């Protein structure tokens, strides 16, 4: 895929070959969130079709990182206060609507959203379309949910809210701890071999 494809009008780009089952939609935020998404995706043991969704501003960089066969580019709205960009409610609503069109086309079996506020439009679109949503709080949140996580928790935007520290699951009763996204036995450090890793 070239950069020109990414900057084209928002559409779902399909790679070669038909999908045999409904894909998982995974929304990747930027910077550290993309590292967590990469760690998450590398942890799937069996082959699952995946569609990556990126915010437009970071699409070229994220596409190089993931090299997904299928991807969706979303508009840059609500990128977070840390980036210093203005937020617009009207643009947010418009982006939700655009995301909903994409969700209707992709028909994902599951939507996974990790940590970032940039994922909200796509998550809301999935929710409106009846797609089960999983929100994974970033592992860097060890003692309290992020603002995005709190929003998801209080408004019950996700069907499953997963935290990566057991203490958080005790603190927020509707959150669950099901492990972490990093596989320390897989990546670079062969200190301990896992014997239960399956193929695929």
């Amino acid at each position, binding site marked *: 895929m070239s950069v020109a494809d990414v900057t084209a009008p928002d559409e779902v780009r399909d790679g070669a070959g038909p999908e045999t089952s409904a894909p998982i939609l995974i929304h990747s935020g930027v910077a550290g969130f993309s590292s967590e998404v990469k760690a998450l995706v590398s942890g799937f043991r069996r082959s699952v079709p995946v569609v990556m969704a990126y915010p437009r501003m970071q699409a070229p960089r994220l596409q190089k990182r993931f090299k997904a066969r299928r991807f969706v580019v979303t508009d840059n709205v609500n990128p977070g206060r840390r980036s210093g960009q203005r937020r617009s409610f009207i643009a947010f609503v418009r982006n939700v609507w655009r995301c909903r069109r994409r969700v209707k086309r992709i028909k994902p079996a*599951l939507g996974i959203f990790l940590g970032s506020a940039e994922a909200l439009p796509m998550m809301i679109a999935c929710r409106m379309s009846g797609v089960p949503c999983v929100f994974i709080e970033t592992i860097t949140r060890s003692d*309290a949910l992020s603002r995005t996580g709190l929003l998801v928790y209080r408004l019950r935007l996700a069907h499953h809210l997963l935290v990566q520290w057991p203490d958080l699951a005790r603190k927020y009763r509707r959150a669950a701890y099901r*492990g972490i*996204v990093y596989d320390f036995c897989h990546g*670079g450090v062969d200190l301990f071999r896992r014997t239960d890793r399956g193929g695929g």
Partner: protein
Amino acid sequence: MIFVTVGSTYFEELIEAVDRLAGDGRLGPDVVCQIGSGQYEPRHCRYFRWTDNFDHYLASSALIITHGGMTVLEALWRNKPLIAVVNTGVLDNDQAPFLERLSQIFDITWTRDPREIGNLLDHAKHKPFKVTEPHIARYIETLV
């Protein structure tokens, strides 16, 4: 190479402290800083703001000096010596609690004060670890 990274925002105090150490010759000749959107530009180090090749810098570094974000885990995952510094200038700062929790597990070297980096250079290692936490992907696969 010593690789210094501030993540997706900025961390002026860290870059200034590293630049000072590099100017004093405490860090060696090969120091590379990722400065993000920061205003301060180092005079004694190579630097860039953003890169598509972040993984390469992490993999080829001998020491990683980083803000207290996801790069800490990336360094641990690659078994790299690291010094983590809390970035108190970031909104909704969660780095100090995160580093405190991590240090209980991995015994990492970290500080709240970038000026302490010079004193921590000889301690920038973490103990060998065994992580038995399940991978979230196992649970997600049951949902599909």
